[in-house]
């Protein structure tokens, strides 16, 4: 198991190095001067020259790459050109919203999808199964911003249980923020839960057709015991894969929901940075997202190995 983890860790590091090179050099090969690009068409030559110095563009390519990577390793991502604050501060503040929101949405999605998928699989072909499949189809088809607006109409305006948007900040206390994140998390979770429930259902159905399920029944296990003890863990691998993908997607993909609920998240940051041509922020946020995706993939790999002994070889 340790060896497996080490192997994965090595490939994680290599992926990160390759990704950082790609991100850095793609921005470098954009035609024209990054400083001129950031400042727009009407910039004064002196301003461009100053920015070039600020950005270190007068130095060699390789030196700048090393400086950029070295900075990131020590937590120094440079200074945002538009916000005039260190990028690391910006990212940390935004992650403080996006990360809890993602985890919240993912937990909700998993909590909904597991039982729903299991029930649909266990009652395959029944009216309940048909209903669940129809419901998940709808959950995937409905745009989540539309669903978010419905949530706001009902829970914020009619019932007044939740605020319609905004984020008080973690200094204001834990529960008030959780409350602020609840509707966005539900809106994000619903389509994900629909996808996950379908994956869960088909994975469990496939597992239930395996020979070892018949063996378990022949040992005297009830059908419920068979599902819980034998089918569930075997069905988990495809489900874990989807959960991993969903995490990466939600981390930056919640931009529309962030806008609907006025949340200062990572998605909005990157959107603003792109419109304002703040390449330093774009570069850094993209790197952070890549890091998150690779890290989650690593964790998913480790859970695979925990779930399936065939993946961890005995040394």
């Amino acid at each position, binding site marked *: 198991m340790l060896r497996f983890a080490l192997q994965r860790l090595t490939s994680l590091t290599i992926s990160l190095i390759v990704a950082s090179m790609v991100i850095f050099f793609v921005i470098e090969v954009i035609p024209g001067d990054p400083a001129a690009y950031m400042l727009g068409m009407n910039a004064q030559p002196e301003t461009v020259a100053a920015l070039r110095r600020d950005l270190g563009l007068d130095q060699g390519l390789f030196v700048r790459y090393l400086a950029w990577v070295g900075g990131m390793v020590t937590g120094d991502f440079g200074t945002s050109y538009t916000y005039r604050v260190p990028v690391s501060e910006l990212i940390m503040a935004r992650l403080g919203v996006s990360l809890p929101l993602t985890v919240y949405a993912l937990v909700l999605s998993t909590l909904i999808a597991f039982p729903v998928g299991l029930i649909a699989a266990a009652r395959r072909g029944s009216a309940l199964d048909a209903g669940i499949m129809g419901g998940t189809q709808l959950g995937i088809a409905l745009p989540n911003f539309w669903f978010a607006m419905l949530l706001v109409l009902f829970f914020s305006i009619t019932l007044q249980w939740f605020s319609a948007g905004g984020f008080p900040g973690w200094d204001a206390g834990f529960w008030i923020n959780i409350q602020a994140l609840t509707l966005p998390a539900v809106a994000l979770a619903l389509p994900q839960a629909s996808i996950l429930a379908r994956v869960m259902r088909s994975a469990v159905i496939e597992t239930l057709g395996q*020979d070892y399920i018949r*063996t378990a029944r022949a*040992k005297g*296990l009830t059908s419920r*015991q068979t599902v819980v003890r034998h089918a569930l*863990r075997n069905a988990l691998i495809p489900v874990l894969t989807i959960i991993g993908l969903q995490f990466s997607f939600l981390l930056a993909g919640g931009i529309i929901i962030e806008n609907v609920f006025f949340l200062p998240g990572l998605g909005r940051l990157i959107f603003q940075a792109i419109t304002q041509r703040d390449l330093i922020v774009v570069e850094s946020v993209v790197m952070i997202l890549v890091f998150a995706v690779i890290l989650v993939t690593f964790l998913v790999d480790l859970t695979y190995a925990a779930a399936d*002994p065939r993946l961890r070889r005995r040394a």
Partner: protein
Amino acid sequence: MSLISVENLSLDIYGTPILRDVSFDIAQGKVFGLVGESGSGKSMTSLALMKLLPDGARRSGRAVIDGRDLFALDEAAMCAIRGNQIGMIFQEPMTALNPVQTIGDQVAETLVVHGVAKRAEALAIAREKLDRVGLDGARFPLDRYPHELSGGQRQRVCIAMAVALRPRLLIADEPTTALDVTTQAQILDLLRGLVEEEGMSLLMITHDLAVVSGLADHVAVMQEGRIVEQGPTEELFRTRAHDYTQRLFAASAHRPAREPTVTDEILLTVEDARRSYALPRRSLFGTAPKLEAVRGVSFTLRKGESLGLVGESGCGKSTLTRAILGLEDLQGGSIRLFDREPVKPGMANALRAGLQVVFQDPYGSFNPRWKVSRLVAEPFHLMPHPPADARDRVNDALVEVGLRPDDADKYIHEFSGGQRQRIAIARALINRPDLIVLDEAVSALDVRVRAQILDLLARLQETHGLGYLFISHDLHVVRAITDRVMVMKAGEIVETGETEAVFANPQHPYTRQLIAATPTIPAQWQMQEHA
């Protein structure tokens, strides 16, 4: 005294009749053999007794054990009986165990779900049971996972699981069909021993008459959902009262009439062929250990000759076959066609056309979306231009293998396993090859179909002067169809010679072991052979 008596068991699945009036008694401590071809209802009979039938099943009749009718019990009561009163093992040990649970937990689970023991105690009992089925604690600790065991070892785990609670009846559904002969012999010995020691009854389901002859006290023959004949084993084997039983016996002992005309023309030369694979590294920086799959194999095959290659799984047969088909490179030695042209990946298509193959699985070796005409004509792609009379040649090939020309417009799912194998042979014949590799080509077929295919192969060999490389684990079949035979073990040919001579007087200890392990119907029972 009878332990279980089944009375008038009938079964329909979604309205299709599966079983009709099946009645039999299994005596306490005796082995009851249920034989028949695939689809005859053997497995459904056993699943009916376990009440583990598929959806849409409607059953009638009674199955009485200890005065209680199993069919009248509810699901909860049945759960208490499964694994406790009646244990069951299945055909495919490779998939019968949960891959993510240790073998100890899986054996212990039988005890735990029936409330006989808590986990710790159950594991201790599991250890005893695994010892009993021949998996000692030193080599097979409880925390082993199924993927670390071979097929035979996994079947032993399944047996330990099924007998952990000393059930009164053990149902074994083709328990050795997926295993090699020597492993089969060991598992049959184990089952025999368990029956004797534990006083357990055994319902042995198999298609193999030789297996039941050596094991069962009582035999029933099933055909199309009915038991056509049953009785004490020796009596049934000697008399063979029912017409179907006679046909079954005749087919299983069938040897096609062959008059091979072996020429001197050499088709295939294999010289000192070597192939090894790198295994996973043991440590991070160590060199990867090698598995030498084929270690210096040499032989020649002449036109019109039928050469057998026998050996157990893992002996290197498949690797050698792939190399002979030019699908994989060798690392040493050479393979040549007509003693000139080297066989290798990337060899000329025209050369490939002379070398065709028929595989084991008649279900997996066809594209289901193509019509038969296209499937059979596919080897034409090896020629620079497809012949103008392609369609006629497809029709001729179909007729030659005993099908009709209008079968060309059908899809593969419309055919039975035996017919599909005929189509595979037609496909192999279409380019008029010199050499056909038959890789376990009749292993998946029922005995009567197998006899027909063997006859077909013998006839085609004579009319076309074909060379056959006949690869099989089934010694009976190899003896029936080959002129010479090679015995392969651990990547090497350990014995080679005229087939009859090798079987009558095996020289190598491994050949002797193989022949001894092969179940056979006692010769004296066959005296009253019906013509």
